[in-house]
């Protein structure tokens, strides 16, 4: 969450709630709506690291509002993040752990595990499809995010098939 917040603040100073809304509007309903508490905790850490600073803005008959802005160090951290290549997804699959280890203990049978997991992936896919239906076609970012999730799920399913062929 740190770098996305820095990126949003590079555009313009904002308070916590505005950052939450900006994330929601940009990524749409496919993205887990960030928890406001988590945003404030992250902002607090960024402030401690010197990447952002906060100014109190007075509000009539309400407590002061903290508006955050990016520091020079924050901009450097953001540029470094943008410049560095991003790791590809690694397979760190909890299901695969189950599949390999559970049968050793006699708790579960691999065929049953694979079959259940396949149906679970298909339920997830159905959910993504429904989400895509509900998503504003004009929100390209949200659409691409959902499409990415679908392609990953397809790859998971193909891999599951390989596991079934080789391990059962």
């Amino acid at each position, binding site marked *: 969450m740190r770098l996305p917040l820095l990126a949003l603040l590079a555009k313009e100073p904002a308070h916590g709630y505005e950052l939450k809304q900006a994330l929601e509007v940009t990524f749409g309903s496919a993205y887990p709506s960030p928890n406001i508490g988590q945003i404030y905790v992250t902002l607090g850490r960024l402030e401690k690291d010197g990447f952002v600073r906060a100014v109190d803005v007075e509000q009539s008959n309400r407590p002061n509002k903290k508006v955050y802005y990016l520091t020079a160090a924050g901009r450097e951290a953001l540029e470094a993040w943008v410049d560095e290549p991003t790791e590809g997804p690694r397979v760190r699959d909890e299901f695969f752990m189950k599949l390999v280890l559970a049968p050793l203990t006699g708790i579960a049978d691999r065929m049953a595990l694979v079959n259940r997991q396949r*149906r679970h992936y298909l339920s997830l896919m159905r*959910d993504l499809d429904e989400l895509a239906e509900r998503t504003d076609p004009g929100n390209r970012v949200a659409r691409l995010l959902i499409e990415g999730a679908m392609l990953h799920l397809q790859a998971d399913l193909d891999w599951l098939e390989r596991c*079934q062929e080789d391990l059962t």
Partner: protein
Amino acid sequence: MTTTPVIKAVGLVKIYQTGGLPVPAVRGVDLVVEPGEFVAIMGPSGSGKSTFVHMLGGLETRTSGEIWLDGKRADTLSESGWAVLRRQKVGFVFQFFNLVANMTVADNVELPALLGGATPRHARERREYLLAELGLEERAGAAPGQLSGGEQQRVALARALANHPRLLLADEPTGNLDSRNTRDVLKLLGKVHRQGQTIVLVTHDARVASMADRVVSLLDGQIVDDAPIARLQRRPAGTAGDIVELHG
């Protein structure tokens, strides 16, 4: 009250005999499909999916076992008996679309309806509707050879649905399609399914399979799983979020 299943297969076996070596492609499959059900068949390459659905459509003879279509014993029919039954009851989409090369797209789609006894006007209206649903109205006058693989596959689906078949059998109907064309096919499948169309469809595509009521998995010619695709617990609207996780 019991309904007659659209498909009942009992102990279905197919052994290909090639150059002396028997290849068991389907090894004892039982399947019942009720009216209006949408069943997806999945499984690795070579697991017998195409062989199985070809047998269900009478396009491949069985080695042993029974096939009942709409309450009628079908596996004992002669080739011409099968052809009649198929024309009346089954729409088939092949893995490698089989369109008639020297007929236009429009004629390809209308033919099964005409053979099934529809009036020319009904056949034309149905054809116009189906081609429009699949974004192909502009290609009606073309010959199949002038279309891309994906377009031919969509024409094949329109043809299979032309006659309002009791059963739609489809073998990888989106195998040649990009994601936009896949979406058109999915929409049409969803629509006819909601109208009560019984569908048995072979696919590797998770989006296609996820529309089914039930998934049947084949491995080495046998069914290893046959169960409904559960609905996930509905999240409150607007918080569909946790499907996608971004890190950073």
